[in-house]
């Protein structure tokens, strides 16, 4: 091989190497998204049927009471999951930032739930929240015979059980992020504030928490993303029940597409989920990658 061929090959090697993965990613991300989009505009039911029906599936979707329940649940679950999760995570991070000797052990304890599958978490909490033998019986045994805790089977309350399990699983992760952010704050700023006479809560409120803004954003991003995707947890904890009281868009999509023989409807619901995520993620990614330049 003479040197010009060698030179040309070496210039093209990086492109050749990344091409397969790139092509794979393009096909399986954007190609399939487009395909799914088309399915959502088709008359597919049990099997794909590529007759074009315009937005009929979307009309059916937004006419469905179950879909609206799913959306409402997403808002409730999402809002609480993110809100409580961030607050608890931040609190844990601030607590652990206080020069604790057992910090390593405590961090391990707060974080281990992230290592578990959402199915494991859901199964465990399903037992803990078991009406009759779970928390209800525990508190009764402690001397409160009239105590009831049947949220798990209560159509109005069941969605909150998912919040509890979700926060239990993810708060440690939020804590890890905030702790890293706290540790990244320049010491000299804190010392200057202490010399200026600010009390500790003041320092946290006026200086530290505001400088954690980037961490807030990336945590918000990740938690919203988790909330929208939450399928495993709901399936294990309530399977969308009682009835479809705890349905979320992810479980709705699965049920329609794979149990009810409503592929077109399922595809439409998936597209709506994608649009929601894209609306949050794309501006964020764009600004992040722009800033790095």
């Amino acid at each position, binding site marked *: 091989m003479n*040197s010009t061929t*060698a*030179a040309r090959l070496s210039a093209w090697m990086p492109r050749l190497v990344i091409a397969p993965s790139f092509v794979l990613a393009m096909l399986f991300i954007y190609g399939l998204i487009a395909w799914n989009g088309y399915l959502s505009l088709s008359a597919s039911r049990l099997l794909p049927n590529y007759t074009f029906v315009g937005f009929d599936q979307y009309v059916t979707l937004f006419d469905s009471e179950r879909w609206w329940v799913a959306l409402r649940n997403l808002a409730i679950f999402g809002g609480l999951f993110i809100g409580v999760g961030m607050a608890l995570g931040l609190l844990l991070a601030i607590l652990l930032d206080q020069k604790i000797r057992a910090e390593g052990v405590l961090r391990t304890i707060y974080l281990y739930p992230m290592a578990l599958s959402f199915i494991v978490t859901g199964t465990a909490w399903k037992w803990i929240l078991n009406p009759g033998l779970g928390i209800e019986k525990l508190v009764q045994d402690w001397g409160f015979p009239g105590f009831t805790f049947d949220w798990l089977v209560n159509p109005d309350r069941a969605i909150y059980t998912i919040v509890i399990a979700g926060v239990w699983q993810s708060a440690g992760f939020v804590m890890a992020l905030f702790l890293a952010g706290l540790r990244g704050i320049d010491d000299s700023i804190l010392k200057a504030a202490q010399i200026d006479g600010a009390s500790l809560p003041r320092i946290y409120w006026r200086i530290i928490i505001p400088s954690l803004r980037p961490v807030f954003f990336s945590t918000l991003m990740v938690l919203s993303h988790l909330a929208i995707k939450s399928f495993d947890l709901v399936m294990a904890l309530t399977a969308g029940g009682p009835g479809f009281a705890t349905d979320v868009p992810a479980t709705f999509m699965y049920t329609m597409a794979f149990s009810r023989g409503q592929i077109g409807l399922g595809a439409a619901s998936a597209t709506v989920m994608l649009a929601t995520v894209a609306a949050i993620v794309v501006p964020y990614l764009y600004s992040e990658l722009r800033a790095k330049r």
Partner: protein
Amino acid sequence: MGALSIRNVTRHYGTVQILKGIDIEVDAGEFLILVGPSGCGKSTLLNIIAGLDTPTSGTVHIAGRDVTRALPKDRDIAMVFQSYALYPNMNVAQNIAFGLEMRNVPKPEREAAIARVSKMLQIEHLLDRKPGQLSGGQRQRVAMGRALARDPTLFLFDEPLSNLDAKLRVEMRAEIKHLHHKAQVTTVYVTHDQVEAMTLGDHIAVMKGGMIEQLGSPDDIYSRPATRFVAEFIGSPAMNIVAGAPAANGYASHGVALDLSERQRSELGAPRGDGILYGLRPEALSFAGAGLPGTISLLEPTGPETYALVDTPMGKLMARVPGKVHQQLGENVFLRWQADDAHLFDAKTERRIG
């Protein structure tokens, strides 16, 4: 035919012009310095010589061969980087021989090269260590050893001393000079430090804004700077420059007539409407009983000499006086200099007159 020929090399990035036409001829065995402020293009030029970058136009010849489009490994060059770039996972011996390994040089020859080079640089006792276990100066030597082992036609140095502390820098400077004297390999050395430039180079190319302001020997650059930039860049403390407006019988700065010798007057020719720039190196100024009056506003004794900043009608002038100075801050002094010691530049073009 020189060892290195750079002809009309330019480099654009879109609309940004990094190099605007560089022409340099380097003879075999010569030590060329590329010096200039950040952003002048010296590192880009070095990368183009190395083959890590390609020029937008122009050619590069090494030992008569056109290498403008050749890969770095085909140019028979070696480079010492600012951060040494030693491979952290290999020991010193492996680092030194890596280039030879890549060229499928047989083991016995590689071992011979390692022995030769480590003896020359006195790093034989370090061959088993990893770069992480070496001091800054030792890493420098290993980086040079890696370059030497290849026995290349051209040596390139990219600010190799910038990461060292002051004392070590002086020691390593001497070692590099000594090494060049022994090995006699053509070298191109990039630095922003003008002291390194003056002490190490056979020829210096002072660069600014992608162009060469002046190419010459250290003495040329120091005694006859071609432009105002070169005059102010080389030499520390920097040359004093005052603006001279046309006046009766010559030029004056703030009403003070500027001393000009016969030779200088003839070189100046007809009066220049824009005026001239009158440059005096600090060592040309001395304290005297009479001359330009002024008040001392700053005194910096360095041991062997004293820098004195003097407030005069012509502006603040920095003088460099041997030994200690009797005067104190705020006292009045007189400054004196030889007219022929002044460097004259055209005020508009900033180029040297004469």
